[in-house]
């Protein structure tokens, strides 16, 4: 095992969150991106199928995670518990924000057909979305976007991992402009 791979392995073991490439690069300023990626590949293939944990690319970074098949046993022993599931209302709101970001509350309400203020507050509190900017319209409404935590709880590498709209069975033929009159 290369020294760089060992170093990265130690850092990833020590961290309790996904570490992005830029942060890993700070461990060894001389190493280029290619060398870092090669080291990560080495770690990943070393863990391969032979270990109970594996190196996973998630939330624009890398993290050691346990294998899925042990979830139930670990949970039964209460060493760790699965997080509570998000409500359909929360997932709806997240879906809209993920695809339309930056997006304001009014548009989320419009699409869902219900007031989404409380749901948005909860998602903000959980750190799954954040205020990214303010809109140009009346009252300069807050516009929301998703955070790395959003990618993390869904196990996504980045937003590109989300299904493309045209892959859905009910793809819209025509996108809806935001300022479309009622």
């Amino acid at each position, binding site marked *: 095992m290369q020294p760089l791979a060992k170093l990265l392995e130690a850092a990833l073991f020590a961290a*309790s969150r996904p570490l992005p490439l830029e942060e890993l690069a700070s461990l060894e300023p001389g190493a280029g991106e290619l060398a870092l990626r090669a080291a990560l590949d080495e770690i990943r293939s070393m863990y391969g199928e032979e270990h109970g944990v594996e190196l996973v690319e998630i939330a624009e970074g890398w993290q050691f995670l346990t294998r899925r098949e042990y*979830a139930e046993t670990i949970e039964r022993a209460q060493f760790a518990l699965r997080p509570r599931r998000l409500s359909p209302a929360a*997932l709806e709101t997240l*879906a809209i924000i*993920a695809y339309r970001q930056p997006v304001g509350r009014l548009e989320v309400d419009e699409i869902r057909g219900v007031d989404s203020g409380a749901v948005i507050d909860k998602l903000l509190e959980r750190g799954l979305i954040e205020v990214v900017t303010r809109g140009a319209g009346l009252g300069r409404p807050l516009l929301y976007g998703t955070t790395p935590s959003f990618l993390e*709880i869904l196990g996504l590498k980045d937003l590109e991992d*989300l299904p493309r709209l045209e892959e859905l069975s009910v793809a819209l033929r025509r996108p*809806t402009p935001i300022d479309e009159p009622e």
Partner: protein
Amino acid sequence: MREQAGFVVELEKFSGPLDLLLHLIREDEVDITDLPVAKIADQFLAVINELGLNQAADYLEMAARLLRIKAQLLLPRRLGDDEWEDPRAELVRRLLEYQQIRELVDWLGHAADVRAERFGRGYEAPPPDAPPAPLHIDLNDVLAAAERVIALMPDPNLHHRVVPRPLDVEGATARINALLAEREQFAWSDVVGPAATIVDVLSAFIALLELAKRSSLTLSQQEPFGPMVITRATPREAA
């Protein structure tokens, strides 16, 4: 409603009026783009009839929208009228868009479930429940709250509580009309009876005002806070 409930729908299951609409559309296996608005509107109204008013606003708004579209579809239109736009178009667009969101919800939910089966290092048990936000209250709030609680406390001498029910203005109107047919003049106490509830009083009062407006009777009082006298109006006075 309960006896005729062919389908029982719990609204808690739905995340909004669009969700409920989609559910009805799927049950009926109809084409969204050729929405049978009249039928769907009736079903929608039947479902929200059971609804408590406080959560109903969004559903009622959708019900009103459905009825407007239904009405627009009933209006005759000239043949070859190119200007005519299907009044359902906007609703259909929203439904399709919402359906897409629902599909994404399934996808996201599944992704979250899969991710939840892998644990990272440094596991921390989730807090049992989000701690309640610190209270900002002053003495007046406390006093007002105490008053509300005291008002809610049942009277120990009370043996029976009358369940509040909606105003029955029609019933009161019928009762007053019966009295009018029988007598030229009568008192307020004849209308409401000796043991009137607040609902009876309100119903009777609204009915009296309405009948007075229609010139079916006249209301008079000899002195402030004196007994109210109800007099049958002479036929020629009736509008």
